[in-house]
């Protein structure tokens, strides 16, 4: 039971942050694709902008790893 809750907690930590990252990237990516079509020289900058929200899911992954590694029974 406890192990299951730990696993669910870790899953939620990654799942919600992945959803947030995906949502942010979809908005930035759509706008970025338009910007690149107009000005191809901003490609690098758009990659940078699209990549920024990824920090959320990476932090989610870090929290999930901590939940699994540090909690007793994890």
């Amino acid at each position, binding site marked *: 039971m406890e192990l299951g809750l730990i696993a669910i907690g870790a899953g939620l930590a990654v799942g919600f942050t992945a959803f947030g990252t995906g949502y942010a990237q979809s908005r930035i990516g759509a706008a970025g694709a338009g910007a690149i079509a107009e000005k191809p020289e901003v490609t*690098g900058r758009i990659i*940078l902008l699209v990549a920024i929200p*990824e*920090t959320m899911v990476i932090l989610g992954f870090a929290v999930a790893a901590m939940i699994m590694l540090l909690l007793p029974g994890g």
Partner: protein
Amino acid sequence: MIIPMTRVQIVGHKQDMDATLRELQRLACVQLLDATQVHPGMHGYALAAEQKEIETLNYLLARLHALLALLPPLPDETPEPWDQKGLIESIQAELDAQAGELEALAQERQQLLNDAEVLPSYADTLSKLMPLTPVLTQLRDYETVAVLLNNPAAGLMDTLAAEMQEIAGPLSELVWDQVDPDHIGALLIFPREAAPKMNTLLGRLQVNPIALPESLRNVSFQDALVHIYQRLEEIPRRLKAIDVQLQESARTYRARWLGAARALNRRLEQLRARKHLAETQHTFVLVGWLPRDQLEPLRQTLEARLPQALVVDELLPTPEEAWDAPVLLTGNRFTRSFHFFIRLLSIPRYGALDPTALMALFMPLFFGLMLGDIGYGLTLLIIVLWARRRMAPGSGMRDLMTFLLFGSLWTIFFGFVFGEFFGNLGHLMLGLHPLWMERSDPDALAPLLLFTIALGGMHIMLGLALGIWQAWHLHQRHELWERAGKLVGLIGLFLLAGVVARQLPRGWMTPAAATVIVGLAMLIHGLGSVGALLAPVELLGVLGNILSYLRLAAIGLASVYLALVGNLMAGKIGVIWIGILIAVLFHTLNLAMGAFSPSIHALRLHYVEFFTKFYEEGGQPFHPFGGPDPFAS
């Protein structure tokens, strides 16, 4: 590395201006500057006498480009040299003599292609209407309109017939029938004077008449159909004949006209370059940026070619002026490929650090760490070696392949470190063991995460150290304090983490906390008035940057588990060849994702985490007068 630049000033008599510009264009080593900005008291060169020649050159170039577009390109096209003397007159005469015939051929070719495209649909429509045409006779004062409607429009016919009777009277006729299961064909015959009102009616009812080509307007449908079939039969033969003629003309004129376009373009560049000059009554002054090691060869060449005519001096830029110097990046054959990734963002400013060499080291390393599999590395290496040879030197795709080449070598290296060959296939079939740890082992998670954080910490601290060095050299006081504060604060935080994790003695707690406070104080000083508020956020931001390197482990684990799932599924299938097929599919998918995703993430770690610590972007690329040649074959 950014090539050191300097400014050169050339002063000479106006009669030597043309020869000087020609020579500079040939050497292609000087980027011209607006001389009046360097010497505000002087007058800029007035482009008045040259305007007519510039217009003629532009006109001839446009004409040449239009004619070259008509001629099919040839495999080997080396532009023929043209004598500058009488250039405009010679080209003009040649174009006048040849353009008419070529344009007529091209026009006919286009018409044939258009006919080949549209005539079959006319033939189709007319053949559908043929059953209705017996009612037609040659009526001099009557107009005939044919329409083809979709079946659901059948009810429209009654409306059309009623309104037509009203407009055109009893002398009009509407004949319609089902011409095929999907279409209704209709012929409208009405007195010619009712044509405007009938057109309005058809427009209102949104019925589009079949508009035959101009050449078929005044012939009967039967004749038109015969004509269309004859034309369709003739088109391929005529197209072939025209293509042969155009090929022949291309062999005669393409190289010649490419040479002419190059000569005209060079002359146009020479004239346009004059607007950068300053002038007195008898002299001209030219100022430009050039690589410092090119100054002496330039001086010697100009002295040899134009003896006693010019004064060539170095015009040393002030530090503020040097900040605006154009940037020319250089590197060895390996690091040069990584300029592509720098240009993708923005090249560094002159005087700032060029991170290409560091990028060439760390980007493939991060890539290899994420993918880390001997099988994938070898497969990628073979694909990249094959693809790279087929790409033009200097192209972005080849640069990308060079990165993947190094990345695949690191992938093989980390494959040995983690003992992976297509996931656990190496372990199962070849008895492969990891040099360090198996990533799929749950016990390996903590060391793997710590390793990536340590790697991230080292990379970020290297970025901060470079930032401090650069701020020191560029006399950027605030940036110096800010970056130094972050570095000191970060060291303090690492020491604290070491004490909390019991890796350092408890006695280190006080010095560690003191280091964090000192770092924060330096950061507050660097950030200015809002420093007290921003400093903790900034320090946490740097910590976030380091945690971002966890992706090196996360993406690697995703790749490992996908490979494991592929092998597991393949093993569960009873039939061996289906198992192999499933394994191949999984590993192909994993490799495709593995080549793409780690590339993007390795790039992101550089752009977002590493570069923000020191990179000064916004440099202007060096564009020397006279280069590169757009007409080089």
